[in-house]
């Protein structure tokens, strides 16, 4: 739990940040993947994988994380309305990158009523569907520490990432015409601090550090939960998207979907894979071949109209106009 100067990423969000100004330590030089063939670093630093661990069993639903997120990212969520549920706002928005989702769960096995409160937001997939779907070079990047970030200046606002995401996270801003989501506080991580939500969490239900440390911490938590009767407690680090850099400790890890629709087995949709996989090169090849073939044929051959055709036409027109034409010779073939 130190902030040693040679450390490439912070190991915790609870440690106090350094007081001296720091250079940004995360940028283009750390980009390992970039949407639509955008620029990647030639020899990126091999940063330690980071992760945010959200222990659902410790969450009290106070929404301090939401507030911290709004404060740090300087977003302006609309004043909401109360429709009788605790979610506020009612969904993720371009101004609200994280959201406490509340589920009232009647546990059929124990007969107990349980509050399942899940902090929703970008999962920072190892294999991000948003990045795969994005058509704008460099609008979505992945750093070598695992953070998936939207670069708004390259974003064209098409919303393809919304279709690519298996978790329904990105939101299109109708005023800025760019898509927004949780950055895992890449700008804080860049200066040795953990995400704002983790910093603000009063119960340390949200913790941040290396993925290795977070996995180990999760294992301790799961053991504790199991000892207290949650036999199905487990870690949510879905392998269908290659694992994620935001992980959950769930007391019912056998049924992720009871946590307000957390996908049981998320993966990039086959439709998106088909669209971004074979369709692109096959489409370009088909159009290219057709264009070249047509140009070549038009260049070397031509269906010509001859002077004889013109004479035949004149004769036909004259006869028909005069009404002296023979009955159609081949008119009804």
């Amino acid at each position, binding site marked *: 739990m130190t902030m040693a100067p040679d450390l490439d990423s912070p190991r915790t969000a609870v440690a106090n940040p350094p007081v001296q100004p720091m250079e940004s330590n995360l940028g283009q030089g750390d980009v390992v993947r970039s949407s*639509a*063939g955008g620029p990647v670093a030639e020899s990126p630093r091999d940063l330690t994988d980071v992760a945010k661990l959200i222990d659902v069993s410790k969450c009290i639903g106070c929404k301090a994380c939401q507030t911290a997120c709004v404060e740090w990212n300087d977003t302006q969520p609309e004043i909401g309305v109360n429709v009788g549920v605790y979610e506020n706002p009612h969904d993720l928005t371009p101004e609200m990158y994280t959201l406490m989702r509340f589920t009232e769960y009647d546990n059929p096995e124990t007969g107990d009523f349980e509050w399942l409160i899940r902090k929703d937001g970008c999962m920072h997939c190892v294999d991000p569907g948003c990045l795969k779907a994005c*058509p*704008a*070079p460099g609008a979505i990047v992945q750093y070598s520490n695992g953070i998936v970030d939207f670069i708004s200046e*390259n974003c*064209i*606002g*098409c*919303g*393809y990432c*919304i*279709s690519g*995401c298996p978790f329904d996270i990105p939101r*299109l801003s109708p005023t800025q*015409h760019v898509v927004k989501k949780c950055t895992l506080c890449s700008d804080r991580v860049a200066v040795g601090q953990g995400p704002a939500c983790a910093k603000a969490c009063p119960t340390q239900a949200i913790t941040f550090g290396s993925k290795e440390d977070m996995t180990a911490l999760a294992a301790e938590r799961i053991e504790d939960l199991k000892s207290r009767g949650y036999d199905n407690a487990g870690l949510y680090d879905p392998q269908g998207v290659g694992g994620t850099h935001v992980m959950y400790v769930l007391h019912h890890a056998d049924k992720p979907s009871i946590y307000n629709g957390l996908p049981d087995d998320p993966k990039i*949709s086959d*439709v*998106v894979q*088909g*669209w971004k996989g074979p*369709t*692109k*090169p*096959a*489409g*370009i090849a088909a*159009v290219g071949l*057709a*264009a070249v073939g047509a*140009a070549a*044929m*038009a260049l070397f*051959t*031509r*269906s*010509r*109209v*001859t*002077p*004889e*055709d*013109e*004479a*035949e*036409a*004149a004769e*036909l*027109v*004259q*006869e*028909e*106009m*005069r*009404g002296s*034409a023979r009955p*159609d010779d*081949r*008119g009804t*073939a």
Partner: protein
Amino acid sequence: MTQREYSESTDRIVQTEPVVVKRYITFTRVNHWFTALCFIVLMLSGFALFHPALFGLTALFGGGQNARWLHPFVGVALSISFLGMFLQLAHLNILRREDLVWTRHITDVVSGNEERLPELGKYNFGQKLVFWGMFWLILVLLISGVAMWIQYFPELVSIETRRIAILVHSVSAVLIVLVFILHIFAAFWTQGTISAMTRGTVSGGWSWRHHRKWLRELARRQRTKPAE
């Protein structure tokens, strides 16, 4: 006046020596070229978002953001414009028995042995294929395009449906560009065609060679009445 089966009321022989035939009135030609302009804008901006290698095409529209908002509006403009074309051209593009014969003799079409082909009305099977290909693909592109237009219709369809819409939109776009290539190719390859859409007229020889039934009908319609 003989009945019209193969021609529009506005089609007429405007000159007899040499024969010159009116094929498209000004309204149809303006309608056509507006549709074509929309098509080219859509094709370029669409290709830019279809393959990263072609993203540079967005520069033609002043960047990715502009290409992104322009594309759907031009799509709507093309759809309305094509509807105009459709209303004018659809009835003579209905498939007929002789189209089957023509298709079976497609090698004679390509090799120029047109004496082996049936006489045709205003359109041959290839032209009808372009017409109906454009019609159905524009319909599919319009519907899938609206489903993708999240700036104005963010809640219209579910994310799963939108994924399918995007795939369908991409595949249909490739197909319609193939139809477009066929259309341009045929216009150039068949000498004497392009003037139909520029000046509105074609030569008698062209009409005799490719659309004899149409020419015959026009001549009959303009039969001079016997003196009374």
